[in-house]
């Protein structure tokens, strides 16, 4: 199930909250964790944003650095949990 505007919402949020250099641009595939834009501590607040926004709970074992490493991967994860919610 594809959620309308999901990727742009995540991309805008990451750009606004985590990107320090205004001149840098992110794409859906930009490496967020391995690229050093979001660290493991900051991942907690990104996870919290997604949970609040989409009324889901992402278990810690699913919130891995790999699953959060790009907007595309995050979108896949969120869609999975939104679908489970029914």
């Amino acid at each position: 199930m594809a959620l309308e505007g999901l990727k742009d919402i995540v991309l805008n949020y990451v750009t606004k909250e985590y990107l320090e250099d205004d001149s840098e641009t992110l794409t859906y595939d930009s490496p967020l964790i391995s690229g050093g834009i979001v660290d493991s501590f900051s991942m907690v607040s990104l996870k919290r944003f997604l949970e609040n926004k989409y009324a889901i709970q992402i278990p810690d074992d699913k919130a891995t650095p790999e699953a959060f490493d790009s907007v595309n991967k995050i979108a896949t994860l969120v869609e999975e949990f939104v679908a489970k919610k029914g």
Partner: protein
Amino acid sequence: MSNIGSYNERVKNFSWQIAEKDLGYKPGDVINIGWYCTDRICQQGKGSKVALYWEGFTGNEKTYTYNDIRLATNTVGAFLRGLGLKDGERVCLFMDRIPELYLGFLGVLKIGAIAQPLFSAFGDESLFVRLSNAETSAVITQKKHAPKVRKILDKLPHIRHIIIVDHDGVSPLKDREVGFSLEKAAPVEHLDIHPTKAESPSVLHYTSGTTGMPKGVQHVHYSLISQYLTAKWALDLKDDDIYWCTADPGWVTGTSYGIIAPFALGVTQCVLDAGFSAEAWYKWIQKRRVTMWYSAPTAIRSLMKAGDEIVKRFDLTTLRHLASVGEPLNSEAVVWSQKVFGKPFYDTYWQTETGCIVISNYPGMEVRAGSMGKPFPGITGTVLDPVKNEPYTTHGKIGLVGLKFDWPSRMRTYWNNEEAFQKKFRNGWYITGDRSKLDADGYFWFAGRDDDIINTAGHLVSPFEVESALLEHPAVAESAVVSKPDSINLEVVKAFVALKPGFTASKDLDLDIMNFIRKKLSPLAMPQEIEFVPALPKTRSGKIMRRILHAKEWGEEIGDTSTLEND
């Protein structure tokens, strides 16, 4: 055969002159860490040996020989001198783990200035208190981090220069900014190294305090002596090693053992400037054929979480020695590393103030899983009765870790805060702030902190600093910050928050406060959980009783509540 050989023999016959002799240093000589890490190695005929393999997150790579780093550090030093920076001035390095951080650090030392490395994830408030306390003269940074410096620049009159190492040469520079490109600058073959002596200040690392703002731990060039020897004996670094220290030089491990000691030993080291993932790390070890790996319990536990199967996909057989630092290494991690890597992680214990490893497990000595190990030869450590401030006469009792403060890399003072420095001593012993017990064979066993400082992923966070920042959030009336147990990071920050009238607890407010602290202080200081409470437990005199909240989080006895208000 390990470098240390027999631990007991080393203890019996120890003198720091062993390191002085190795390094060709005699008391009274000039001793400059920058020179020892570069020029001296070249003079030994190792100029063409690889000093640093570096890889960034996009996969771009750089390789530097010892002659390359000699020239690069000369070039940085000459550039800084050209700006008018002089010995004794504080020069902050505020960068990701890019080569300029490592080379800049040594370049600063070469001109006799004091290197002040700060973690690049620090927010503007964390940056401000440290730069203002040190009255820093210059900041070396990257384009991406410059906005944080600009934001606070008006309040920092001491800063004369902001050096941007990746400036494109085209974009307009702002107030006090200057562009510098190590790649484009003409290499400086000869630099007059500042003739620093043993007690000349070298490095200023900031560390968190329980009740005050961060303190600048001041080290001297003579620290090299014990950083060199501990790396040789405790980390067992050898000439043909490929060494990987995973620490960021924003913290002391990343400078003592990520720059100074390995380069002074002429070892090849490698740096991976990328976020953590088990796959990326194992791939790096395989690619660089890492032989000695110095990491931290949080990373080791994260690797454990990633599982055993992934390890089998990589050739990690080059690893010959593993060590850990930052927080107590749990016995499960030691057992796990033995299982998957065929060798245990050796725990090492030290802190920003000690400047070098002071208690450790050593190659060739039995590793007792979960133990901190034994004092480094030449260092006297004990467990003190917290009431009498005297060493316990029987084993097994938990007390304060005390050290005789007499090794070369001990801090000399807290910057502009001699009073706080003096408070670290009781009855002639330096008090580390950690609690431990000793077993009958002299091994130390960590038992926790003796104060409210939070150790998250090996980094110390001051509850006071987080509480002060929380008060600046428009919704927060008062707060109390404590540690909360965490299976990966050992501890994480938890905040209890009472809101101002007109504000209501909500998930959005919770996230807003988290992000507020993350940006103001750092991701490490961000509360991973916020509990909204109507009021905080206080004494009758109005002091917030953090220990009650701490006990609740850790499932401990609350203890005496006789002074609790409204009890």
